């Protein structure tokens, strides 16, 4: 039975690639409001009664949440992940201690070296075993059906009916990051499994990330605290801002973007394809970053600040810069645990040496970074799904960044010759627009589920020119609402204007939430009313459709 704003619920379901099972999470519902209020009340009451075990409330709340939203049987995957990574990390730390002791007792340099080598091998085996369990499980749940389909052994990518547990990639990567930190001796393992399980199951992060780090989360999750009104107001503001993005932009634009991109092919006119890609670019940003704002806001209500995931990505001045601002927690994970280990491994060092001799210092030293980057983006593509278009999208990003770095000295020379002031405002604006265009080209392989169709649409973008007067009728024929504003509903344009202003302020170094809370009451009320009105007008677009978060269930 549903209560309250039943039609304006968000249903978390596997993304467009995994339409297997819908997880019901009604964020804008009485149920979720009751759950959150009750958990907050119990949590802060425990802060007074039993501060030492206050964190247990978060654990119980997280398990209940996952049980209801992700269903109870799927909790077992989380349990196996947590258990294998917790045990693995303890074993790694134990071996590390044993190695130190054995090295102390060893006589002579050679014996010490032999002891070190023996324990390095043992620790690598433990790490390998943990990764085999976790990635094996993830691989089976996420890719097995698609692989079978691609080799003709399954009817469709979903025919086996494998249910992907909610948030599996996020909690899996968080757990593996923890093991790697212990392996690198940067972190002492957590001795208490129950406490560790809270880190893995913390309910705001299992919806769609971010991928948190144990070192940053543990001190916050296990601390005892009373309610901080300033902190709670900040959290609430972020939650509401996320709802505005999700409802007034993402949910409003999603229909029009699908109406255009769904049937798009090589015959679609250039302006229509471009409008479709633009709609997708803004819809996706609002959906993913809005969802993150919601869960970060919820977490902040409990005094827990999770990892930052977005930093005004559409103000990036290069593709590499964009990836340092978009899905940042995944970027950090990939950089620390894939990119650097690959780029400085023995064969890469050797390659660098040879390339330096052959091509000179600048190019030679860039080679390993370029290759590692391409591999990282291949993995990122694979992380999004086993379908070819995701891999093409990942490789496109990796190759573009690699080329930009390889040719950086050439671009610099050209810039000097043309007397381009790289620090000037016009060049900065140009760099932002150029980056947006480069990112948008990648979107063709992201939102169009066939590489061939994506390439055909890309070709159409630069060849299928039509008179601008024909664009509106084409949009109408596709069933796009509000063709006068090119598929951008007025309410979404207002919300986009709000997001633009907020992003500009953040980009200029303002702490928007703090400054907003310091404004005079009438000004604040006016701002809240304006945003509330936009939000209220947007709700009619969500009626009857529970729109999924795109990144839920990755």
């Amino acid at each position: 039975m549903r209560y309250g704003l039943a039609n304006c619920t968000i249903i978390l379901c596997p993304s467009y690639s995994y339409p297997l099972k819908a997880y019901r999470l009604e964020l804008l519902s009485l149920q979720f409001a009751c759950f959150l209020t009750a958990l907050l009340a119990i949590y802060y009451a425990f802060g007074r009664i039993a501060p030492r075990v206050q964190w247990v409330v978060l654990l119980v709340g997280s398990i209940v949440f996952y049980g209801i939203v992700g269903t109870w049987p799927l909790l077992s995957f989380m349990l196996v992940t947590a258990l294998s990574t917790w045990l693995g990390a303890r074993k790694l730390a134990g071996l590390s201690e044993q190695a130190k002791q054995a090295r102390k007792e060893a006589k002579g340099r050679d014996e010490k070296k032999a002891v070190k080598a023996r324990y390095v091998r043992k620790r690598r085996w433990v790490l390998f075993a943990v990764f085999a369990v976790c990635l094996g499980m993830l691989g089976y749940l996420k890719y097995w059906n698609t692989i079978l389909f691609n080799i003709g052994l399954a009817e469709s990518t979903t025919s086996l009916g494998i249910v992907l547990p909610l948030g599996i990639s996020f909690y899996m990567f968080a757990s593996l990051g923890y093991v790697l930190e212990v392996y690198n001796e940067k972190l002492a393992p957590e001795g208490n499994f129950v406490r560790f399980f809270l880190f893995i199951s913390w309910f705001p992060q299992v919806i769609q990330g971010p991928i948190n780090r144990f070192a940053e989360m543990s001190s916050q999750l296990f601390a005892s605290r009373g309610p901080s009104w300033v902190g709670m107001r900040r959290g609430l503001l972020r939650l509401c801002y996320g709802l505005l993005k999700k409802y007034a932009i993402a949910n409003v634009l999603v229909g029009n973007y699908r109406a255009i991109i769904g049937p798009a092919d090589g015959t679609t006119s250039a302006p229509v394809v471009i409008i479709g890609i633009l709609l997708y670019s803004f819809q996706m940003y609002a959906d993913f970053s809005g969802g993150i704002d919601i869960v970060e806001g919820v977490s902040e209500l409990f005094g827990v600040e999770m990892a930052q995931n977005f930093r005004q990505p559409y103000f990036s001045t290069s593709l590499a810069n964009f990836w340092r601002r978009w899905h940042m927690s995944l970027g950090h994970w990939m950089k620390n645990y894939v990119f650097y280990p690959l780029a400085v491994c023995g064969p890469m060092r050797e390659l660098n040496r040879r390339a330096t001799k052959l091509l000179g210092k600048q190019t030679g030293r860039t080679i390993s970074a370029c290759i590692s980057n391409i591999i990282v983006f291949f993995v990122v593509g694979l992380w999004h799904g086993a379908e070819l278009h995701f891999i093409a999208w990942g490789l496109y990003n990796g190759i573009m960044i690699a080329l930009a770095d390889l040719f950086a000295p050439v671009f610099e020379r050209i810039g000097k010759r043309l007397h381009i002031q790289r620090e000037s405002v016009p060049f900065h604006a140009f760099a932002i627009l150029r980056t947006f265009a480069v990112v948008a080209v990648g979107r063709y392989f992201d939102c169009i589920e066939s590489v061939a169709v994506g390439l055909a649409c890309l070709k159409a973008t630069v060849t299928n020119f039509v008179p601008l007067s024909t664009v509106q009728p084409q949009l109408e024929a596709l069933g796009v609402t509000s063709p006068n504003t090119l598929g951008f509903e007025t309410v979404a344009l207002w919300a986009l204007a709000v997001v633009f202003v907020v992003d500009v302020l953040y980009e200029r170094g303002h702490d928007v939430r703090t400054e907003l809370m310091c404004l005079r009451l009438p000004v604040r009320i006016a701002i809240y009313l304006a945003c509330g009105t936009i939000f209220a007008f947007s709700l009619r677009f969500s009626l009857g459709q529970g729109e999924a978060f795109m990144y839920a269930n990755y």
Partner: protein
Amino acid sequence: MDITLDDVIEMLEDIQEDVDYEECVTLIDDGVLDSFDILAIVSAADDEFEVTIPAKDITPENFNSAEALCALLNRLADED
């Protein structure tokens, strides 16, 4: 052989000029050096000082200043 701060600064200037390496202690935090620069440093440390920097030591703390990098290189040289 001790690796001096001057040696490290000279190496860094070869990778990226126009940075006050004597004063700056936020080379990573402020984005002065990016991941490609870090790999260039790893490569240069290998070439110039014969010190291998493993991936686990590529952390902001070790690369935020010339002094921290100098300490890292000396520690790794001693371990060898």
